[in-house]
C-alpha cells in the first residue's frame, strides 16, 4: 500500500518530470544563505550589467518548501528524520508559511492526499501549467541570459520564460493576471532586484498545495556569490492569504551538463493522456 502510494506520488511528480538531486544537496539547500556581503564581483555584459548568464539548477526541494523530509520520502520512499523541520523559508523563523486561519484550513485536505490526489487537488505543475514565480526557479534547470536592457529567464520544463525589463517602466494594468507575472528589474550593485506583480491565483509553491491569491507580490533578489553560485531570496506578500510577508531562500548552482543549450520539453503535449490514464484508472 505504502509502495502504491509512493508510486502514485512518483507519477504525479514524474508528470512534472523533475530531476533528482542527491539528498545531501537537498539538505544543503535548506540552510539560509549567510547574508554576508558577497566578495565576488561578476564580469560585466556589453551594456554594463553584472554578467550572471548561464544554465543553473536550484539546490533544494521542490516537493515541500516547508519540510525537507518530504523530499527524501519522494526520492526513496523512506523517511529521513534528519530532514524533519528544515525549510526553505527563512522568515518567519519557524519556517512555515504564515497562512491566515481560513487559508490553513483550505490547504489541509490537499495536503492529506498529496501522494495520490483526486483530480481537483492535483498539483497545477503536474498539469503542465506554467509554474509561476518563484516556483519556476525551484524546479529544474533554467537559463539566464542578458540581452541589452533585459534579463531573460528560460525554463526547460514547460518552456516557460520570464522577460525582465530593466527600464523602470510601470507594470501592466492590474486587471491583467499572468501565470508568470509581470517582472521589472534593476541592479543594486551586483544583485538583481525584481518586482513581480500581475500574478494569477492558479499556481502553487510546491507539490503540497501551498497557495496564494492574485494579490501576491514577489520581490526577488538574485545575488551572485561566486562564478557558479547565485543566492536567491524572494519576499512573498499577499494580504489576502498570509498574516505577514515571508521569505524563501534558495541557491542556484551553474549546470554545465547541458553544454550551451536547453532542449525542448513539450510537457502538455506529452502529458495529457498519461494524466488521464492515471486520474481515471479503475478504482478511482
Amino acid at each position: 500500500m505504502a509502495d502504491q502510494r509512493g508510486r502514485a506520488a512518483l507519477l504525479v511528480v514524474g508528470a512534472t518530470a523533475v530531476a533528482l538531486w542527491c539528498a545531501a544537496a537537498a539538505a544543503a539547500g535548506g540552510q539560509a544563505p549567510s547574508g554576508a556581503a558577497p566578495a565576488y564581483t561578476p564580469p560585466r555584459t556589453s551594456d554594463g550589467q553584472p554578467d550572471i548568464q548561464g544554465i543553473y539548477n536550484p539546490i533544494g526541494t521542490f516537493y515541500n518548501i516547508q519540510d525537507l523530509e518530504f523530499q527524501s520520502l519522494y526520492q526513496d520512499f523512506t523517511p529521513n528524520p534528519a530532514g524533519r523541520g528544515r525549510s526553505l523559508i527563512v522568515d518567519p523563523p519557524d519556517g512555515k508559511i504564515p497562512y491566515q486561519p481560513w487559508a490553513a484550513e483550505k490547504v489541509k485536505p490537499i495536503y492529506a492526499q498529496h501522494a495520490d490526489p483526486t483530480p481537483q487537488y492535483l498539483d497545477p505543475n503536474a498539469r503542465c501549467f506554467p509554474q509561476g514565480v518563484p516556483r519556476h526557479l525551484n524546479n529544474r534547470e533554467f537559463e539566464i541570459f542578458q540581452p541589452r536592457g533585459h534579463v531573460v529567464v528560460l525554463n526547460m520544463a514547460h518552456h516557460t520564460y520570464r522577460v525582465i525589463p530593466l527600464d523602470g517602466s510601470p507594470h501592466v494594468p492590474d486587471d491583467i493576471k499572468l501565470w508568470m507575472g509581470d517582472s521589472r528589474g534593476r541592479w543594486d550593485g551586483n544583485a538583481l532586484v525584481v518586482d513581480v506583480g500581475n500574478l494569477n491565483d492558479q499556481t502553487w509553491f510546491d507539490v503540497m498545495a501551498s497557495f496564494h491569491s492574485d494579490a501576491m507580490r514577489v520581490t526577488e533578489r538574485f545575488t551572485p556569490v561566486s562564478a557558479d553560485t547565485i543566492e536567491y531570496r524572494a519576499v512573498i506578500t499577499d494580504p489576502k492569504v498570509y498574516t505577514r510577508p515571508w521569505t524563501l531562500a534558495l541557491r542556484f548552482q551553474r549546470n554545465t551538463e547541458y553544454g550551451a543549450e536547453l532542449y525542448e520539453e513539450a510537457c502538455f503535449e506529452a502529458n495529457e493522456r498519461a494524466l488521464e490514464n492515471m486520474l481515471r484508472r479503475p478504482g478511482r
Partner: protein
Amino acid sequence: MTGRLLLTLCAVAFAVAPRAATAQTAALPRLADGKPDLSGIWQAATTANWNIQAHPAEKDVPAGLGIVEGDEIPYHPWAAAQKRQNQANRAAADPETKCHLPGVPRIMYMPYPFQIFQTPNHIAMLFEYVHAVRRVFMDSPHPDGEIEWWMGDSRGRWDGDTLVVDVVHFTDRTWFDRAGNFHSEALHVVERYAPIGAHHIQYEATIEDPKVFARPWTISFPLYRRMEKGIRVLEYECYAFGLEHTWYRPPE
C-alpha cells in the same frame, strides 16, 4: 471572432507598410558586431493561420490572398487527398484546437506577438502563444539523431543583412494552418529574415518535405514591429482555458 478582432487591432496598431522595396539598409539598427538588430516585438498581419492559400471569407474567417508563392502547394497525390480529409475534419483534427505547440513556420504567422532577443551567439524568439520558445543558435550544427521536436531545431547564419535559419528535427503532428495543410517529420524549413527598414522584416521560408511534397515551395509575408506605447508580450495559455468542468480540471 477574437482572431478577427485581433486582426482589426493589428491593422490599426502596426507600422504602415513600406510603399515600395526602397530598402534603406543604411537606416537599419545594428548591434555592436555590425549585424542588423532584430530585437523587438513583432507580429504578422496575414490570415495565413486560417489558410496559407488564397481563400474567401467565411463566418469569423477573413478573406485572404494567402502567403504561398504561386498559391500552389505541390502535394503528392496521396497527400493532396490527406489534406482534403484534414480540412473536412479540421474542427477536431487541427492541432491548434488541442492547444499543442504549433511548429514552424506556423508560429510565425499566428495572430499573437512575439519578442526577439539577439546576442552574437544566439537569437531567442519568445512567443505569447503558449509560451512557445525558439532558440536560434548561430553558426553551429544541428544535433545528431532521430530528434522530433514540436518547434524543430533552429540554426542561424547571416547572409549579408539577412538572417538565414535552417530548421529540422520536426514532428509530423503540426499543421501549417486551419485548412489542413500538413507535413511529415521529414520537414525541412529554411527561413530568411530580411529587414527592410527599422520596423519591418520580410520573412520568407522554403518548405521541403519529400515524403509529402513533390518539390520545395515558398511562403513569404512581412513581420511588423508592434509600435504601441508600452507594448508587452503577455500570455495566451491555450490549454489552461475552459478546463474547469472537464475531468482534467474539475471544480474543487
